[in-house]
């Protein structure tokens, strides 16, 4: 039997970063009590009609342009009909033909070290369904419609991917791009970025596609990788044992690490698409398109290059680009303190983790970019030691206090004053006669212990280099 290779295509759903839902004025997103962000429109009450959120159209067009696709000036909504308890109207309002975006591509690193363009088939808008909550204890199902009507784009790739690694890299790159464009908030844990994977095997070199399985609704990059690898093994085993791969919809059980059939082709839905008569065609004018093009930031690769030229490390750049708003914050701080490396380190080691912990956005942090720049300045001027700066940070982040004033008030400035330093040196020498004796006997490694004691005495305000030099001098003086 000839060697088989996987053929993979993705359908990515990203929740659009709009204030309100796609067809009504209810807030889109936010964790609140079930069934509080609802109205007659998103719960499918008799007589209600949809009205399109213009911002969602702009974001979908923006994503299309950023991915090199063509924005269709005329696109249509269609009803996709099926019954499910979390689908209030008995149909999803989606786009079939023409969608808002056609074509485009995104490149990933290929196995041979080059780049490989993954072609996009289409980008369309649609509304999300609600959620079914299964109450096992009481054996009943509850329905929460807060998510019903939340705007999504679906990005459909061509079957151009050939490994779990490529798929994961594609998704990470796409995620980081859409987040940076503020097309989506992209919070994976909230399901704001999730995907379906289509996967089949074909004999190497053949152009005939095999029968595919579709793995539904994966919301972590890791699970995508695991699910693809599992599915490749499962399908390979089927081919090797002479079995037949069935066209199936699959669910990935991440606890067991395996896929499971949800339904086969025989039970597949006939969605009976037809044009949604309640919504006129979606028109995007050339003027609007030009506006969107002008609002696009430079491509990520360009930014990455320029950041690396500033001396930032690869993972620092990634961290800044992945967190919405982090890049703008960094650039604002950089205007006031042009030493990128130190700023980048502070962001990655202190600021971003603190944001994550407190659940705030860079824009709404009380510690603005000017304050971070001031902190960096204090460090580079030698006023604040790294330890003192890091100890002080939680308070600065919490209160938004001016770092200079706080350092002043706490007397935390780095001590270089000779007489204070000499006082501490005397204290260390007097307090550790045994260690001093050992040093004088030639065990010079013990110096670092003594410097440590000195730093402790100074509560970190002593300049470590200067302290070490002066202490050495004082010890050497003892020999004579």
């Amino acid at each position, binding site marked *: 039997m000839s060697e088989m290779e996987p053929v993979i295509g993705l359908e990515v759903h990203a929740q659009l970063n709009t204030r309100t839902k796609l067809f009504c004025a209810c807030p889109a997103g936010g964790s609140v009590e079930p069934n509080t962000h609802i109205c*007659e429109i998103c*719960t*499918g*009450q*008799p*007589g*209600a*009609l*949809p*009205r*399109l959120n213009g911002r969602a159209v702009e974001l979908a067009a923006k994503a299309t342009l950023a991915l090199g696709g063509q924005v269709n000036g005329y696109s249509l909504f269609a*009803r996709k*009909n099926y*019954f499910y*308890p979390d689908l*209030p*109207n*008995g*149909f999803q309002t989606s786009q079939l033909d023409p969608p808002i975006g056609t074509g485009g591509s995104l490149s990933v690193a290929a196995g041979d070290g080059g780049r490989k363009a993954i072609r996009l088939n289409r980008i369309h808008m649609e509304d999300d369904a609600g959620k079914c909550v299964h109450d096992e204890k009481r054996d009943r199902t509850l*329905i929460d419609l807060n998510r019903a009507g939340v705007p999504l784009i679906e990005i459909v790739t061509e079957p151009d991917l050939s490994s779990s690694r490529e798929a994961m890299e594609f998704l990470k790159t796409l995620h980081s791009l859409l987040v940076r464009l503020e097309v989506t908030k992209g919070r994976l844990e909230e399901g704001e970025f999730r995907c379906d994977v289509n996967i089949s095997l074909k004999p190497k070199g053949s152009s005939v596609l095999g029968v595919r399985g579709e793995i539904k609704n994966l919301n972590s990059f890791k699970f995508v990788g695991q699910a693809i690898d599992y599915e490749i093994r499962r399908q390979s085993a089927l081919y090797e044992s002479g079995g037949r791969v069935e066209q199936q919809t699959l669910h990935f059980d991440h606890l067991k690490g395996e896929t499971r059939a949800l339904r086969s082709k025989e039970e597949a839905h*006939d969605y*009976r*698409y*037809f044009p949604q*008569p*309640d*919504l*006129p065609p979606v028109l995007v004018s050339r003027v609007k398109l030009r506006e969107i093009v002008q609002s696009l930031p430079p491509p990520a690769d360009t930014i990455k290059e320029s950041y690396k030229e500033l001396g930032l490390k690869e993972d620092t750049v990634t961290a800044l680009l992945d967190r919405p708003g982090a890049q703008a914050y960094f650039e604002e701080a950089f205007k006031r303190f042009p030493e990128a490396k130190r700023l980048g380190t502070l962001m990655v080691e202190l600021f971003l983790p603190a944001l994550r912990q407190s659940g705030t956005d860079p824009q709404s942090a009380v510690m603005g970019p000017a304050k971070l720049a001031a902190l960096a300045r204090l460090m580079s001027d030698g006023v604040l030691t790294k330890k003192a700066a890091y100890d002080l940070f939680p308070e600065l982040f919490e209160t938004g206090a001016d770092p200079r004033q706080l350092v002043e008030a706490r007397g935390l400035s780095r001590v270089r004053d000779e007489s204070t330093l000499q006082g501490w040196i005397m204290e260390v020498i007097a307090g550790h006669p045994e260690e001093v004796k050992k040093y004088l006997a030639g065990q010079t490694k013990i110096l670092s212990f003594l410097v440590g004691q000195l730093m402790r005495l100074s509560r970190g305000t002593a300049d470590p280099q200067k302290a070490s030099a002066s202490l050495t001098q004082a010890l050497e003086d003892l020999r004579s």
Partner: protein
Amino acid sequence: MTQLWQLNLAQCSEGLKNKDFSVTELTEACLKRLTETEPAIKSCLAVLEDQALETARDLDRRGNDSSRLLWGLPLTVKDVFCLKGAPTTAGSRQLSDYYSVFEATVVRRLKAHGAIILAKTNCDEFAMGSSTEFSAFGPTRNPWDRQRVPGGSSGGAAASVAGFQVPGAFGTDTGGSIRQPAALCGCVGLKPTYGRVSRYGIIAYGSSFDQAGPLARTAADCGRLLQAVAGPDAYDATLADCPVPDFVNQRPLKPNELTLGLPRQFWNADLHPQVAKVLDEARNLLTKAGLNLIEVDLPNIKYAVAAYYILASAEASTNLARYDGVRYGFRQPDPGDLMELYTKTRQTGLGPEARRRILLGTFVLSSGYYEAYYRKAAQVRRLIKNDIEAALTRCHFLLAPVSAIPAWPLGSFLDDPLTVYQMDLMTLPLNLYGGPGLSVPAGLGDDNLPVGAQLWGKPMSEASLISAGRVLESLWPKLPEPQIPVI
């Protein structure tokens, strides 16, 4: 002496303005008439007596406001309009206990103009039917003969106006549901241009056809009612972005200014002898008065019924998907599983005509049939539009019969849906086209049943359409009052 309930809308308005009577007096008179005639004609599903009287007293206290077009005028609305404070059932068991959480734009505008909504009127379930017999709550009776249907689906609305319960009503017209009952009951019915009146809060049947419109005793009254509700609404994306002209104070047309096109396919159709007789006489009156009548051709009209029932049923099948028993309305108690919840709920909650159209619509949208049915029908729709557009280039309006037969005895066609569908031949092409239509009583047959004729106009031509309707009214015999046994 003339009773208050005998006045038409303009007369009521004039009387209120002159303080000949109060809003409360008028409302009480209409409510009394409604209570007396309702056992015979059964036009209403809910009478909003307390709300109506309270509003009437409130209007009287505040005094007349001439900026409000419908100040103090009692009306009914078909039970497909969402309204707070009473169930909104659409004539369906599925919604027999359903209270809407919001009000239709039409209802809001009627109230804003000072109208008093007296009752919600009966209709075929989800506006699907031509006789009101498909209402889950029993049929409405024709005011002229209680053994006959009032037409449909806005049969309750037409009967409430023709039975002198109210001077005006609102219905909806998807394939003739305002014009046909208006003709069979002997009142005036106006279907506005698609996109003229907001559909927000109107329970949907065929979304690309549904249009709300007034029924009243004169064309001018229909104009006044349309004036109050027409125009842009942020809640309906399909509304035309088009200024609303003055429908009330139009220059009267002279008969010899009008050229009417008579579609050959309708006038040569197999009309009931009484209908033919009344319409012949009506035509003669027009010719005598100097109107120019020409014959026009609608070559593709024979495909209209098939195309309409494919397209409207397709839309209906998904519009009605929300009635699944999950969130509101009737729900099958203790279903075995989810599938049974759906199937049993819909089998019990929905009546035979609604189920028939859901099945038909589901079929024509199904994979493998879409091209053969839905797409073909959409193409036919375009051809029929072209036909009507072409005919309207040769005349001001088209003139056609509304129904080939007068009101028929209850139960006649219950088991014969295809015959009933065919009877819509002369109304539904206008919905495929999208333009406005006005049904006007043309006279009374020897069988003492009214016969109507309709005018069709170009999109957004309601103002001149109403003027033309007034010309026909002035030339055609005025119908007497139907004799209804009162209790």
